[in-house]
């Protein structure tokens, strides 16, 4: 294993570099706000004024100045390129955000999504003119169903949380169809769940009953049995769970929930650990969203867009939202209206995130069934390699046992050092890494959730491990002050988040 990178050169004693006239520090350049550099009379888009014509705006012309500054193209390039350089990215380094799946984003997928036959077609063109788009949606559905062994898929949800809402809407509609809407209004959710789970349930008027996990970090069938009752509409369980563990009792839990008349919603945020290795349908689940922006690598884009198709069991399939594609002879039809069906209706305008479907489909074609299986296996192998390489320094809340695609540490090993999980994360920034997910899941004290993905080479993993070991040793040696000062080598030091929340400034106001 590497101790230090071979290009390492010892630096002279660190001191704050002297202030510069510009505030820049070499390649680390300051950049003012658009509103401080743009001008109202400048535009970077050449448009000819129209020939004289008679406006027909009904007297509703906008008269007052809007206040939008413009940049010409070179100014815009410089502004946004400089801003971009203040961001960490997967392309620049390992991005071990647990539960977020920051894997490589192939550029082929970007190229193909921009083919004019995908990017320049309108959702309401005559269906005869977009048969290729409908065929691609059908193909995506075929792959998702084969990978999950489920009966139907709703493609339109816009992201994971929207997919959760879709699944719960389907369940609520199914329950209403059974005449139990008034009595089944509880959703079981473990404490370790993503915050979106209880938020989605609450949005639909369900009340949340928290199911405790065992000391081993997983939900046991007995706990579910105790929480079940005739008021339970569904359980929402993430599997693999947010502790990076596989919910061993899942088949038994699914059976119990079904016997009690409830539905099993599986949060598929971590499907990337098992795609091609096992099929969630074989566990007995009823619904699961699949984050195309995680498992199938559509870019996260600084926080979206995502895409969250939901696979459904046979007993939920009739209630799926519109639109959906239907093969009719040689053609494919898009069913856009719920009338005459049992569908719960529409949850977004148009048909879903086509731009993400094309990227995900290119990713699936590239991998094939064999490549998807290999990706899952490598992701799990890499997480376990990190676990095995750090287990003598860092502590794991549920003991040392194989994890899935992400490994969870807590802060027990930092106790007495005066260093928190946050301090440790910020010190990673100085070492050139994006921190892991911290303080989530809530069931681990000072959680540090590391997901390396299958995209890292062994050399990259080794350097990451060596870096965390070195930081860990420095922490245990008592170098607390250095951790409290971190980061020192980022575009910004730690931010005053209290000020931001107490006196919110959410827009530029001039001056």
């Amino acid at each position, binding site marked *: 294993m590497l101790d230090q990178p071979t290009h390492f050169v010892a630096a002279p004693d660190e001191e704050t570099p002297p202030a510069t006239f510009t505030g820049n520090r070499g390649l680390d350049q300051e950049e003012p706000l658009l509103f401080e550099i743009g001008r109202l009379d400048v535009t970077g888009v050449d448009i000819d004024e129209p020939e004289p014509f008679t406006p027909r705006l009904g007297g509703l012309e906008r008269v007052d100045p809007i206040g939008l500054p413009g940049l010409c193209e070179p100014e*815009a390039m410089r502004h946004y390129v400089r801003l971009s350089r*203040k961001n960490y990215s997967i392309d620049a380094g390992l991005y071990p955000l647990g539960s977020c799946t920051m894997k490589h984003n192939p550029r082929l997928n970007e190229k193909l999504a921009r083919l004019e036959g995908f990017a320049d077609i309108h959702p309401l063109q005559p269906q*005869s003119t977009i048969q290729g788009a409908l065929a691609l949606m059908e193909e995506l559905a075929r792959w998702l169903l084969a990978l999950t062994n489920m009966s139907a898929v709703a493609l339109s949800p816009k992201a994971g949380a929207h997919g959760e809402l879709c699944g719960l809407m389907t369940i609520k509609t199914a329950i209403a169809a059974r005449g139990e809407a008034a009595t089944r209004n509880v959703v079981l959710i473990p404490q370790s769940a993503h915050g979106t789970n209880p938020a989605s349930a609450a949005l639909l008027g369900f009340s949340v009953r928290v199911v405790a996990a065992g000391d081993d970090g997983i939900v046991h069938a007995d706990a579910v049995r105790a929480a079940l009752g005739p008021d339970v509409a569904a359980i929402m369980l993430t599997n693999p769970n947010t502790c990076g563990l596989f919910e061993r009792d899942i*088949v038994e839990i699914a059976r119990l929930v079904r016997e009690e008349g409830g539905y099993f919603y599986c949060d598929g945020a971590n499907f990337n650990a098992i795609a091609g290795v096992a*099929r969630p349908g074989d566990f007995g689940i009823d619904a699961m969203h699949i984050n195309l922006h995680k498992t199938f690598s559509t870019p996260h884009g600084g926080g979206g*867009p995502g*895409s969250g198709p939901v696979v459904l069991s046979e007993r939920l399939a009739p209630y799926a939202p519109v639109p959906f594609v239907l093969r009719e002879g040689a053609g494919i039809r898009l069913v856009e209206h719920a009338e005459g069906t049992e569908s*719960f209706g529409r949850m977004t305008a148009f048909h879903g995130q086509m731009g993400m479907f094309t990227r995900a489909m290119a990713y699936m074609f590239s991998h094939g069934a064999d490549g998807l299986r290999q990706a899952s296996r490598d992701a799990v192998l890499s997480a376990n390699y990190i676990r095995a390489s750090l287990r003598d320094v860092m502590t794991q809340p549920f003991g040392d046992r194989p994890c899935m695609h992400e490994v969870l540490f807590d802060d027990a090993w930092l106790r007495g050092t005066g260093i928190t999980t946050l301090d440790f994360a910020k010190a990673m920034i100085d070492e050139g890494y994006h921190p892991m997910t911290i303080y989530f899941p809530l069931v681990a004290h000072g959680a540090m959730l590391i997901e390396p993905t299958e995209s890292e080479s062994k050399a990259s993993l080794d350097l990451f491990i060596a870096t965390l070991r070195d930081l860990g040793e420095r922490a245990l040696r008592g170098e607390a002050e250095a951790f409290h000062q971190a980061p020192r080598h980022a575009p910004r030091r730690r931010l005053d988040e209290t*000020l931001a929340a107490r006196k919110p400034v959410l827009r530029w106001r001039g001056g």
Partner: protein
Amino acid sequence: MRYHPLTDADRSEMLAKIGAAGVEELFADMPAEALLHDALDLPRGKSELEVERVMSAFAARNIAASRAPFFVGAGAYRHHVPASVDHLIQRSEFLTSYTPYQPEISQGTLQYLFEFQTQVALLTGMEVANASMYDGSTACAEAVLMAHRLTKRRKAILSGGLHPHYADVVRTVSKLADDDVVSLAPDVYAQENLLDAIDAGVSCVVVQSPDFFGNPRDLRALAQACHRCGALLIGVFTEAVSLGLLTPPGAFGADIVVGEGQSIGNALAFGGPYVGLFATREEFLRQMPGRVSGETVDADGRRAYVLTLSAREQHIRRDKATSNICTNSGLCALAFTIHLSLLGETGLRRLARVNHASAVLLAEALARVANVEMLNDAFFNEFTLRVTGDAAEIVEKMAARGVLAGVPVSRLLPRLGLDDLLLVASTETNTAEDRAAFVAALEGAL
């Protein structure tokens, strides 16, 4: 596999370190009966070249807007996007970064979101905006839920000029959340009486301008009527470029303004991904859904930006959150903000004038066509025609003649006797030749 760096030798070394004989051991917690042993009924992996071939074959079966005179709108609009926009959003640091949870190394995203929020607030005539929603329709549903929280009432009134998909999304959420919705009948001429629908039980009135049929609306009296009853006015738009020429809902007194931002910076992409815009009054900030970037300082006192007011959000508040939204539309918001900063006020106003002129010229040409009636007195870049016969059939016939003519109203509002209505949009991308082709194809199809 070209995306997988680990070699078999690496894998063996890693397994040795872990102390496992094989990767299977790492999956030992999975029920044995659930493990796949046979290959799935799916093809094996393909080279880049092969994937390009397969995907291009799907794309080739679609008629792209660039291949035909194109007049389709109804909530998604074809505009020219400068080449620099797509180049910039593909910078690794924007494309392959996550939600800016670590602000010290995410200032690029946080600053452009702050700029985006400011632009959206200015454009809509509102005080504050969030960092984007999925799209206009889901932003609209979120606005209704927000109004319910603010007013502690649970009844929404939907204008008959609201985009039918937006109305459907609101109705879906409301039905399943057990809230009330009153939907007014489709309002082709913008003559509905919303004032009479407002009573003390109403939480909000949702009105679109320009409405689904293309009519710009004056919302002043409606805003006052809402406020007299303690209700909120939600202003909606589906064509963001219109705000360069038309009085924004904020100036009429709207309390929440939501809309679709696709028109600026984003491709048609068959309906998504798009970017929902969401703006409101400062006093309502803590009930606003979605992420916001706020200004603060770092430990050295330098100006910096950070995701703030997260006490509203699901990852903190869980079942008490203002929304379940997590991932939003970051990269589409970036495309929007870059395009709008290239346009600036000067460019946006000119672009809006060119759009309006394009539609006016088309309307004037259609006035000379027999069996076609123009239904709008006023419009921006889209209007409604009454044609003799079934508009859906006419659109198909025109498509066969190589013109993508617009959207039959019955596609979104079936079985309401609106089969003879056709929505037609004309933007800066349409030329005089396109308009002539439209008129000729329509005359041939009638």
